[in-house]
């Protein structure tokens, strides 16, 4: 039969449980702002009596659990990957948006000035001033083409550097996750929940970088794979994503275990950067090159049929590269014409006052000579600007949507996992009262024991 000393044991178990409750509450409050921290709760259970007629043996703390919702965490990671994809895309696109500028202050103004110059030349074809102006405006146009091409190329280089940084970070994160997996596979010790918190943060960062898929192995570890199925982490092992510079521009390709995954990363910051570097920016470059090439070819065709101020047949007005690719960067006004505007073949016949070619070049303003007759030069430029603007808008809209989704999912997760200071304040009071009551019970038993001992002494 239980005695008073057993009652002391009950009081002691209650004091211990209340103290642990206070500790857990304190831990929760201390980590209220810690990223990835899932609130801890104390699971208590009654210590059952060993013999009939006993009240019981007090209370015991069965476990301290971290409250996580693996399903929501997985969805947050997936959406976070998409959000980072859009953010990376938008960062790059907003730079391109500033490069294309606003109507009247960009390439469209140079194209208009170019045609204006030939229009003025047609009105006064023998004027050296008009010829000089036509040459200078043409040079200004080629300079603008080259500057725009250089800015796009620079954006691709920036994206490539960002890709390299992201891959290095992804590899570091994969190593860290594998290391944490290893510790959790070996039991994790008393800080298993802390390790899981830490790993959750790392996994979210990995998802943000490459939109990875996380598979719970059931043994405490997780496997991490790319969307394509290529593994980055398997248990305690990490697989490095390798980079190799590829010709002609030295941009890196990405491989995992010798498998090229460059085109297979469709989410996360890395996915956005790759889309920007390998799809959108080259698309803009191709449109710009086509515009520069077709415009120059149309001008050259008319110029070659003309005659200069001395009645000699005209050659090419623009010096063009061998291929359309790179035309915007390489286009130049013929060095001979730039040095001597008399060589500008503005006439349709050897008569010096003939202005037929100048008129024909000025008339290109309204002629659909770009993309096989699909657009005028200005329309082609406006089309490029529209595409950039449309891509910016799509990325903005997609990012806003994903932000809302992530925010909503985080609210759902927080309902389950986040620390509520109000709740912890209530717990604090509850465990404090519990401790006080257990302490009072302990004192009562000690007093009772004193009474008993005094009875024995008499």
């Amino acid at each position: 039969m239980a005695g008073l000393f057993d009652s002391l044991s009950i009081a002691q178990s209650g004091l211990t449980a209340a103290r642990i409750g206070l500790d857990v509450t304190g831990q929760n409050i201390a980590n209220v702002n810690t990223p990835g921290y899932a609130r801890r709760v104390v699971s208590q259970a009654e210590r059952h009596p060993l013999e009939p007629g006993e009240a019981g043996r007090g209370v015991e703390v069965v476990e301290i659990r971290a409250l996580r919702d693996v399903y929501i965490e997985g969805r947050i990671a997936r959406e976070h990957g998409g959000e980072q994809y859009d953010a990376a895309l938008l960062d790059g696109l907003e730079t391109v948006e500033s490069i294309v500028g606003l109507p009247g202050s960009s390439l469209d103004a140079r194209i208009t000035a170019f045609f204006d110059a030939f229009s003025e030349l047609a009105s006064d074809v023998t004027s050296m001033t008009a010829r000089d102006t036509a040459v200078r405006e043409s040079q200004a146009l080629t300079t603008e083409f080259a500057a725009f091409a250089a800015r796009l190329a620079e954006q691709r280089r920036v994206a490539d550097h960002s890709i390299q940084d992201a891959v290095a970070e992804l590899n570091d994160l994969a190593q860290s996750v594998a290391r944490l997996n290893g510790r959790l596979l070996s039991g994790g010790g008393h800080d298993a929940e802390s390790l899981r918190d830490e790993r959750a943060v790392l996994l979210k960062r990995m998802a943000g970088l490459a939109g990875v898929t996380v598979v719970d192995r059931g043994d405490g570890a997780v496997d991490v794979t790319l969307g394509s199925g290529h593994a980055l982490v398997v248990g305690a092992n990490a697989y490095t994503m390798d980079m190799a510079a590829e010709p002609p521009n030295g941009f890196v390709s990405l491989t995992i275990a010798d498998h090229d995954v460059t085109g297979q990363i469709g989410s996360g910051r890395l996915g956005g950067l790759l889309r920007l570097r390998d799809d959108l920016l080259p698309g803009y470059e191709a449109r710009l090159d086509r515009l520069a090439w077709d415009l120059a070819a149309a001008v050259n065709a008319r110029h070659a049929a003309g005659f200069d101020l001395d009645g000699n047949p005209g050659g090419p007005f623009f010096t063009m590269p061998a291929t359309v690719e790179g035309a915007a960067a390489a286009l130049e006004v013929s060095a001979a014409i730039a040095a001597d505007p008399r060589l500008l073949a503005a006439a349709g016949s050897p008569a010096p006052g003939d202005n037929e070619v100048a008129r024909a070049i000025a008339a290109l303003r309204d002629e659909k000579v770009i993309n096989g007759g699909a657009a005028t030069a200005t329309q082609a430029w406006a089309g490029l600007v529209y595409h950039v603007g449309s891509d910016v808008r799509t990325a903005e809209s997609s990012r806003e949507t994903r932000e809302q989704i992530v925010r909503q999912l985080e609210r759902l997760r927080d309902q389950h996992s986040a620390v509520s200071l109000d709740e912890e304040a209530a717990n604090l009071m509850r465990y404090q009262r519990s401790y006080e009551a257990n302490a009072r019970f302990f004192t009562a038993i000690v007093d009772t024991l004193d009474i008993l001992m005094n009875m024995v002494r008499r």
Partner: protein
Amino acid sequence: MRIIYDVLRDGLSAVETAHAQLARAQQQLSSGKRVSGAGDDPLAVQNAIGERASIGAIDAYTKTNEAASAQLALADHVLNGISDKLTSVQVAALSARGDHVQDSARSAAAERIRSLRDAVLADFNTRYRGTYLFGGTRVDQAPYANVGGVWTYQGNSDVVRVDVDRGRQVSITFDGRQIAQGSDPTDLFTVLDELAAAVETGDSDGIEAGMAAVERAFARTQRAIGALGADEQSIDEATFRLASMKRAAETRRASLEDADLVEAATRMSQADTAYRAALAAVSTAERQSLLDYLR
């Protein structure tokens, strides 16, 4: 149900959204522009580029019209001058016709005709901004010159045309021979030389033939003046049409690019209120805690 209010996530997000709207309204008001980048309204930006290109083309045509108009006005003046001089030639020749005219009077009339010939020659060799008006496209040398005692047309039969509007051209130089000779066997200067000689010698048949040739030259000049007048009218019409088109294009461009300042000011006021409300909401929500009541 546990409700968690995260100041950073929920509160600041609302503040940031309101602040972004405020900044956008401010930017529109200060710049006067509705769009600050292609992403704001891609279609509007695309159309605005098109409108600006149209305005650029209209400006170019307008400039061409101004230059062409000035050149045609000069040509008109010159051709009218030639007409007047040909009339004077007729008067001088008429004064020398008949048996009663004394030799001195015939000599004076012949001299007057030669003087008028030189004046007409100067008219045909008129230059504008360094180019000859009546040499066709051979604008670098005088249309008519006496080469080895023979009057020679040094121009050609082409003309310099300029575009005064889409699909509308006018000639700003002229085929001088078409006016000075036309389908006649000899040019006006040879005719005037022969007429002066006939007047000097009292050759009645020569005077009659010369006067008839001058009459035909006068008619050709009048036709040229008529054609030129039509071109001048064409330029005026084009200029009027271009001005009207430019006003319309400017209106469309402004509606695409420019901010409605009243609307922007209203939006800014609304955004300012929303921004203050978001700040107040965060501040209020952050102050409330059960901890305050447990002391």
